[in-house]
């Protein structure tokens, strides 16, 4: 597989970050950074990462099923992750979640037909004091109101 030069540089750095013989440590970061670039963890990616760190593809498979951010199928380009855990629940996180589902006509871990936006109800994202909070890909949005979410979803629909 070929990756962008930035990702190759990231892989090189990762493989040099661990003690000799411990390159397996790079597995999870490699999978996540590659997923960011290609959209999901494909069977080819599993093979490629396994080859580069010197383990069997099965050993990569068993690890990848454990981590909730790693996914085998691509989601939307703008992945909207709404927290409804305790602090967000107390401040309106459920209302945000319900509004997003209604507006987009999709549910948990689903994407719009054009593959543009996807939704996920997530566990605590570490923004409790600025709840309710959500993330679009890796970007945080704090103290979100239903109106702000509505405008955000409109702007994501228009964005490339």
């Amino acid at each position, binding site marked *: 597989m070929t990756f962008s030069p930035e990702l190759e540089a990231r892989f090189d750095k990762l493989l040099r970050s661990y003690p000799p013989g411990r390159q397996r440590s790079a597995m999870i970061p490699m999978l996540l950074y590659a997923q960011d670039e290609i959209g999901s963890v494909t069977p080819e990616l599993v093979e490629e990462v396994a080859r580069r760190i010197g383990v069997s593809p099965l050993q990569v498979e068993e690890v990848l099923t454990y981590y909730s951010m790693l996914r085998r199928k691509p989601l939307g380009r703008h992945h909207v992750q709404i927290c409804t855990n305790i602090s967000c629940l107390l401040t309106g996180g459920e209302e945000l979640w319900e509004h997003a589902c209604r507006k987009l006509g999709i549910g948990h871990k689903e994407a719009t037909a054009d593959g543009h936006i996807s939704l996920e109800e997530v*566990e*605590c994202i570490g923004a*409790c004091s600025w709840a309710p909070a959500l993330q679009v890909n890796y970007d945080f949005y704090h103290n979100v109101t239903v109106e702000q979410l509505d405008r955000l979803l409109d702007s994501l629909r228009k964005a490339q």
Partner: protein
Amino acid sequence: MLYNEPSPLEVKVLTRRFGLPNSASIETYLQTDGYQAFRKALGMKPEEIIEEVKVSNLRGRGGAGFPTGMKWSFVPRTSPKPKYIVVNADESEPGTCKDRLLIENDPHQLIEGVLIAGLAVDAHAGYIYVRGEYRYLIEIMDRAIAEAYERGYLGKNLLGSGFDFDLYTHTGAGAYECGEESALLESLEGKRGVPRIRPPFPAVVGAFQCPTILNNVETFCAVPPIIRDGGAAFAALGVPKAGGTKLTCLSGHINKPGVYELPLGFPVMKMIEEVGGGMRNGKKLKAFIPGGSSCPVLTAQECEGLTMDYDAMAKAKTMLGSGGVVIMDEDTCMVKAALRIMRFYAHESCGWCIPCREGTTWLRKLLQRFHDGMGQRSDIGLIGDLAKNMLGRTFCPLGDAAAMPTISIVEKFAHEFEDHLNGKPCPYEKAERLAIA
């Protein structure tokens, strides 16, 4: 960046650079006593460093509250194996959002704390394990690490001392359980984050089967002030047996939610009223979580006269935990709160230990049924019994973390479960929705 106004009642030790222009840059850090503690530590014997940390009464800030100096003293310094420093930045305990700010606003303080720990146990490499969702922090941390290499605070022969140290960031990929130290080490080694049986503890057999110091971000960030100003000065800020300050994250039904650095021993009601600006919409306090969702929940009455420190919380049969304070007002449905907390633990249970895997799943189903108005009177006792059967019967504390809030809620708020039998489905739902609007 700061996300909330500071409070005048804060005692700013770890957060003193927050809000300075370019607070994350090495220039700002060096202009404000940065790396002075590391210089001082270079002239100290390892035992002296550990002794200073012991004197400070610093206790682990990730949740368990274990004395840090003692933890460091367990590392066999003379072992022929390499030693490692691992930073737990997997902040995932619901209610907790403080380590984020420490890295975002002052990453060099963390680097300096790691370096001093390295000197204390003769380690020459460290890893900062950052939860996957905090990608922006890895970028901030990587920039800070690059600056430190450029200025000779990381790399070979630091400040001409002959001491070498390399530091790396490592991303997680979504798993609450990896905040538990042995699961984190498994994850760092490229495996599923299932916990290890202990002993041996990480101090002896940790990262890559080598002796390892593993602490929370906030714990490492407390080390430079301790070495710079002395352990006694840090200890004096807190209470006996728990020195210094604690970053406290206020969230829920409060007027000024935010992260505040408060001296240990700060009164709970004063924290709610004066730091947090009181209850939102003038409502009454119903329930209080002192340190993240795994802590037993307290009633308003139990908060009277209570202080924010490890021993006071233990006496109140709960925990100071991670400092994630969640405040719930009179309109909150406690069955729903218990359900949401249990949904989280059921989602995060790795399935390794049966009491946790089955217990969290069945409790989630039972609580959901109750909240939907289909509960039976006998379920109230069953919820408590199931939760108690998880306590102490799992490898890692996730099982306990799920059981403790559930037991406290079903015992202290039993009448709310009764109300669900009478006013179906949820008699609180309407009030709760109004409170949010």
